[in-house]
């Protein structure tokens, strides 16, 4: 009895506030836009009984999904989100790996402090961390002031409102997610393996590629997924730093909903985004399971 209550309460909550809302998104993605409140048709009306349900189903169609394929904006936005996510994940790895490596090789009594320094930004507001780059990257910003003062450039660079600013923003905000799994993989590594490799005639660099990198593979893979998956649907970073030049699907969905008030198309965009995300999510879960089995 008690077990039943324990299961039922969180289960009911998730059904009502997680699964049912998805059903609604799916349903609205198959509906038509209408000048009404709510602004779509048909609406489900149970008073019509079985006949009402049949006419409701017959009015649903895939028009919005067809629309997504005919209008350039959408598939370009999906592709460019994927592209930005791939490049940004790679850049985050390039920046994050040396930091994780440095942490793993730091003296023992530093490590707790270094860990805290990596985690601290994660607790500070995401919005503020993205915002902090607006003042740095703008045309009159601190970076341009510094470069002009140093005489490295004669004209201010345009960085804010370009994809470059989006990459910087993503690397900056998601860096802890990359560092932590790599650090925990590197920290567990047995240092004598490297010594053995060097005794056997490897140079330090070869030993790094042949020993350290493969042994930290699990951390690299986990870190990449942790950056890649949330980046695809990112909204705040492209909106604040990317300007009108950067096309990302999270932003398109937001604008479709709030600016164009086209709920059916916004819902269709969400459904397709979810279908795209399922592949990396399943791969990630498999990877995590494999790792747990290997450790357990």
């Amino acid at each position, binding site marked *: 009895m*008690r*077990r039943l209550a324990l*299961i039922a*309460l*969180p*289960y009911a*909550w*998730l*059904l009502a*506030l*997680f699964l*049912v*809302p998805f059903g*609604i*998104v799916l349903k*609205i993605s198959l509906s038509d836009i209408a000048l009404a409140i*709510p602004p779509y048709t048909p609406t489900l009306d149970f008073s019509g009984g079985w006949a009402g349900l049949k006419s409701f189903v017959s009015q649903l169609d895939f028009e919005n999904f067809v629309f997504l394929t005919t209008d350039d904006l959408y598939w370009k936005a999906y592709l460019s989100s994927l592209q930005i996510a791939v490049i940004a994940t790679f850049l985050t790895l390039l*920046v994050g790996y*040396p*930091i994780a*490596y*440095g*942490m793993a*090789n*730091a*003296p023992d009594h530093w490590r707790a402090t*270094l860990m*805290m320094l*990596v985690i*601290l*930004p994660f*607790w*500070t*507001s*995401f*919005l*503020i*961390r993205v*915002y*902090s780059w*607006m*003042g*740095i990257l*703008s045309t009159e910003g601190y970076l341009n002031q510094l470069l002009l003062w140093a005489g490295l450039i004669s004209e201010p660079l345009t960085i804010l409102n370009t994809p470059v600013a989006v990459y910087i923003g993503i690397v*900056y905000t998601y860096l802890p997610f990359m560092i932590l799994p790599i650090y925990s993989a590197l920290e567990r590594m047995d240092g004598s393996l490297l*010594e053995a490799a060097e005794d056997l005639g490897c140079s*330090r660099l070869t030993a790094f590629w042949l020993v350290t990198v493969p042994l930290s593979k699990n951390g690299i893979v986990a870190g990449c997924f942790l950056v890649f*998956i*949330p980046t695809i*649907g990112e*909204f*705040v970073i492209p*909106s604040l730093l990317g300007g009108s030049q950067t096309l990302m699907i*999270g932003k398109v969905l937001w604008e479709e909903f709030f600016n164009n008030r086209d*709920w059916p198309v*916004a819902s269709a965009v*969400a459904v397709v*985004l*979810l279908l795209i*995300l399922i592949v990396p999510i399943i791969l990630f879960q498999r990877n995590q399971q494999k790792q747990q089995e290997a450790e357990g």
Partner: protein
Amino acid sequence: MRRLTWFNATSLTLGFAFLYLPMLILIIYSFNESKLVTVWAGFSTKWYGELLRDEAFIDAALVTLRVAVVSSTIATVLGTMAALVLVRAGRFPGRTLFSGMIYAPLVMPEVITGLSLLLLFIGIGLDRGILTIILAHTTFSMAFVAVVVSSRLMTFDRSLEEAALDLGCSPFDAFRLVTLPIIAPAVISGWLLAFTLSLDDLVIASFTAGPSATTLPIKIWSSIRLGVSPEINALSTIMIAIVAVGVITASLVTKRASLRQQAEERAAAQQA
């Protein structure tokens, strides 16, 4: 294996400079006299004054705190229950769906969570306001609590609980007196995580908040869309300071606790 020291030192210095310089600049320029945020015109705390006199900001901060306290508390209760179900309940019909629904919010884009909840609230005719934000935040943050607590429960030694039951505890007392104190650190960090996620959230709150309730991130968002503002720099500095004090205190407390535990274990080992 301590080598390439110059390389490690450089990568750590550059890495942490990258992580902290932007925030440092923000803090420094929050004390700037000029309204032109990128031009230094002398030290002043006037933007802090302006911020504290701005009632819209104070109201938004209070709404955000109320939402965060209530939603993270409900999320902690539900998330802990969910973790117990995941780790302890064994097989039951619909288990796969249940664990799917627990883990899905972790990877769900916020725009989709926000959109779907908004469509639900409109569908059932619930007026948007503080209540709807609380419901939305509870739903996505309970997943994070469940993950944190279940990872603690997996390493939990059940024989302790069985001993309590053998000694005549009711199952509820065994949970309250044995299990809960042991998983308490995980429950507390789950609550803190849920609290921070709620404080921080812009996207889901924007979808689920009506005109009657504005949270701090929504307010910040509407002031920074047009560019950098000195008031927001001041607000950011205050928020960064609160977080820094909190995290540093927490890490000192855990460090001291682990030192004490080590000392006790050493003493026990010596006695034995």
